[in-house]
């Protein structure tokens, strides 16, 4: 499986892209002499050049530095809530599939409820209550994503429990929790890996959309979506201000989408989604 | 994959190709009307079509457009799985009517519908006017195969290719479908090529039989001759492995061995590994077709004797005379 991963060019390239951007985000302070927050009113709205790699914004802040720090936020928002949503979705999905009809009805009803909202509008309601912040963006992404993950985990779990060896284990009196841990979870792993990878791009897009609307991450924090929001007024005169963070979002999303597709081909989980 | 086949289908005759799974029967059938899967190709050979009007043409060289013109009108085909062979999303009547529409046999919608219903009646589907509107999943396997036959017959073809038409059906339905095909050939003046692995089907319906093993014809003879006087060890194996009702299932006869996997470079007789005659020559040299009697041929060094080579060319010939 590891071998077939390295034979898959798309997978290798997308991992490389993600790792490079990740390292750039982590080691941002070493890559640029500028701080994401430091204003330099003398050097306002400079075009990309040798001194400022991607130019400066209307407050004289270095766009390249801001982009690296923004990528940090985007990657954190990509990984943390997605991981939590997959975790929550897995537990509830298995419970729904394997712990009786009542649990199934309630959990799936709740999943349907959260899926009945357009994600953006539900997130806006959360922003209204909690205010625009890191935490509220994370909460809204978890609420947006857990339902569909739970649904898929449920259906895959159901097809796993159809297997005779699991039914045999049941008849021999093995406890449900043991079956879940020893038999169901290991079989779910490929599905979970693919789900995790394919949900990351939607998390990135949700965060950037909320920040773009001005209700997500708030200044003075930096985020890619927020950078575009702040440069909206100058979009025609200084397009690079918006273009740099936009391209960064696009590359990240593309890389994770390609990786997810490739992983699905390699791991070949049982159901298609 | 398939080589050295020379098949002649006489007008109104029913010819069978018999052999075990994976030996290339279906490929042969699909090559006739050019519906081979994309990985398979006809590399050489010819298929000579003798039109009733006296015209002669080679089906292999026909362009896609030209062969499609003949499909449905000259050559029709029915398949093994009547469930998957029908479009699940379309009413069966419309699927049959499509043949008339494609070939402009009947442009008037009402008249076309009437013809379809007539044909459904001809293939003994009860309440044809109601069934016209049915979807494939609403019909039983036997009914679906009747629909397939109706679809094949509506263009009034001269040749019907039936690729394992009864394999997916239960035994009583099998007999009914075979009887129907036989009757259709007689009423509509049509020839048929039956592809099957079932010796019972062959004895039931075919006039002449080709026994195929791994893409090569091993023996060919009129049905009665083949069953009465099987010559090739493979044919004998096939006939003796038909289970009788009173046979003890523990001792069902089989042909030992399985189909060899790598046979690209192999020059000998395809059957030698499983053959009871352990002769060195068979491993190095493919036998030619030997003539046993007037229309009984066999490809075997041991049994064939020295009556002379009849045909060993790599050609696929379809003749209708």
């Amino acid at each position: 499986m590891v071998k077939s991963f390295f034979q898959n060019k798309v997978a290798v390239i997308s991992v490389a892209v993600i790792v490079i951007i990740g390292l750039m985000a982590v080691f941002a302070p070493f890559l640029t002499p500028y701080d994401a927050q430091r204003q330099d009113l003398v050097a306002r709205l400079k075009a990309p050049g040798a001194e400022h790699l991607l130019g400066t914004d209307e407050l004289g802040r270095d766009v390249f530095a801001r982009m690296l720090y923004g990528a940090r936020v985007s990657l954190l928002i990509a990984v943390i809530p997605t991981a939590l949503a997959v975790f929550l979705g897995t537990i509830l999905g298995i419970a729904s599939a394997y712990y009786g009809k009542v649990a199934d009805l309630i959990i799936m009803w709740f999943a349907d409820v959260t899926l009945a909202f357009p994600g953006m509008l539900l997130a806006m309601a959360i922003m209204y209550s909690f205010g625009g912040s890191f935490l509220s963006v994370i909460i809204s992404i978890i609420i947006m994503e857990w339902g569909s993950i739970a649904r898929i985990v449920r259906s895959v779990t159901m097809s796993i429990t159809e297997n005779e060896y699991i039914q045999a284990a049941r008849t021999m009196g093995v406890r449900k929790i043991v079956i879940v841990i020893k038999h169901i979870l290991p079989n779910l792993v490929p599905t979970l890996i693919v789900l995790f990878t394919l949900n990351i791009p939607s998390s990135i897009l949700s965060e950037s959309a909320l920040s773009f609307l001005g209700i997500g991450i708030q200044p003075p924090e930096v985020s890619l979506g927020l950078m575009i929001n702040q440069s909206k007024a100058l979009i025609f005169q200084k397009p690079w201000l918006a273009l740099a963070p936009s391209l960064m979002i696009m590359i990240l999303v593309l890389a994770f989408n390609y990786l997810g597709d490739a992983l699905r081909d390699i791991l070949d989980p049982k159901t298609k989604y | 994959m398939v080589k050295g086949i020379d098949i002649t289908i006489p007008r109104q005759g029913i010819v069978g190709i018999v052999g075990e799974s994976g030996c290339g029967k279906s490929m042969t059938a699909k090559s006739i009307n050019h519906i081979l899967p994309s990985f398979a190709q006809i590399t050489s050979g010819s298929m000579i079509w003798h039109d009733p009007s006296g015209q002669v043409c080679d089906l292999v060289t026909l362009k896609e457009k030209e062969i499609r013109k003949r499909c449905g009108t000259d050559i029709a085909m029915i398949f093994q799985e009547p469930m998957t062979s029908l479009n699940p999303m379309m009413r069966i009547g419309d699927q049959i009517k499509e043949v008339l529409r494609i070939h402009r046999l009947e442009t008037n919608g009402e008249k076309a519908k009437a013809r379809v219903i007539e044909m459904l009646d001809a293939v003994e589907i009860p309440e044809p006017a109601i069934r016209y509107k049915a979807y494939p999943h609403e019909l039983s396997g036997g009914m679906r195969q009747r629909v397939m036959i109706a679809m094949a017959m509506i263009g009034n073809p001269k040749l019907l290719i039936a690729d394992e038409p009864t394999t997916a059906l239960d035994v009583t339905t099998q007999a009914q479908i075979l009887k129907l095909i036989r009757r259709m050939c007689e009423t509509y003046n049509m020839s048929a090529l039956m592809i099957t692995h079932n010796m019972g089907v062959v004895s039931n319906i075919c006039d002449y039989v080709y026994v195929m093993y791994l893409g090569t014809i091993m023996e060919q003879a009129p049905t009665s001759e083949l069953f009465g006087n099987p010559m090739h060890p493979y044919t004998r194996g096939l006939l003796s492995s038909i289970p009788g009702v009173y046979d003890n299932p523990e001792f069902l006869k089989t042909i030992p061995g399985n189909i060899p996997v790598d046979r690209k470079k192999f020059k000998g007789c395809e059957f030698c590994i499983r053959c009871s005659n352990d002769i060195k020559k068979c491993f190095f040299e493919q036998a030619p077709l030997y003539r046993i009697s007037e229309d009984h041929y066999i490809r075997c060094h041991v049994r064939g004797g020295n009556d002379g080579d009849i045909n060993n060319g790599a050609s696929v010939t379809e003749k209708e005379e």
Partner: protein
Amino acid sequence: MSGFVRRCIGVILVLLGVMVLIFVILRIIPGNPAAVLLNDHVNKETIERLTASMNLDKPLPEQFFLYLAGVLKGDFGQSYYMKRPVLDLVLEAFPYTVKLTVFSALFAWIFGIGIGVISAVHHDRLPDYLFRGVSLLGVSVPVFMVALVLQYLFYFKFSLLPLVYDGSAVSMILPAIALGWNSAGSVARLTRSGLMEQFNEAYLDTARAKGLTARQAILTHGLKNAMVPVITMLALQLSGMLSGAVITESVFGIAGIGKLALSAVETRDMPLLQGTVLFSALIISVGNIISDLINRCLDPRLRV
């Protein structure tokens, strides 16, 4: 039909859950929204009067049932900020969102299905690689980026189309493309994979044996079967499209539901936000039922 009735009951239960959830989310933070609304300048009496008129002094469960009763009668409450019934505001905004969604769906479907079909027919050859790249790009680009790039190119660079929506049909072109872009990508991907799954189906052999060319067989018989999952995606896309509409409407200045919700967040107008979110969830639920019905019509196997 009983399956359909059960489905409708399910949807009603889900909508009830939707109401509870949105009600809880909007009131999870303690504090009197009336006080927030009126700032600190007004006297206590005014706050109390407003609080009472909005039932905010009653316990939460009672508030919920009062709200539920109101909704059932078609009363979604009064907007704090605009001082008008929420339902009126939502119904005024709704046609704009419908127009936007319909046009972008049209764009997405025409382009998505077209590209998907070309990709599948030429699978693993140059046009396929090209279009697969384009469709993956389609799903990977944020909506606002598409919107800004379109504005930059078609308004600023070439002055071909208006910058924002002004009521004319021409000014709807850019918003529709911006919103439809993502869906076009996913429709294309699904069409391609759905169509390619049909390639090995036996009924295509039958169609060719009837006299259709391979291409005709795929485009008539194959496409019919491949479209079922694509249509099923309609409902899923409706949700995504309403999400995207928030952004598109804000960029292009369209006074639709999304813009209304955004302004409700910005002006801290709780009843208005509650009403718009609830209304959009209702739309999605209705959309789910409709796509279910369409599916039943399309796929005879689903009919009971």
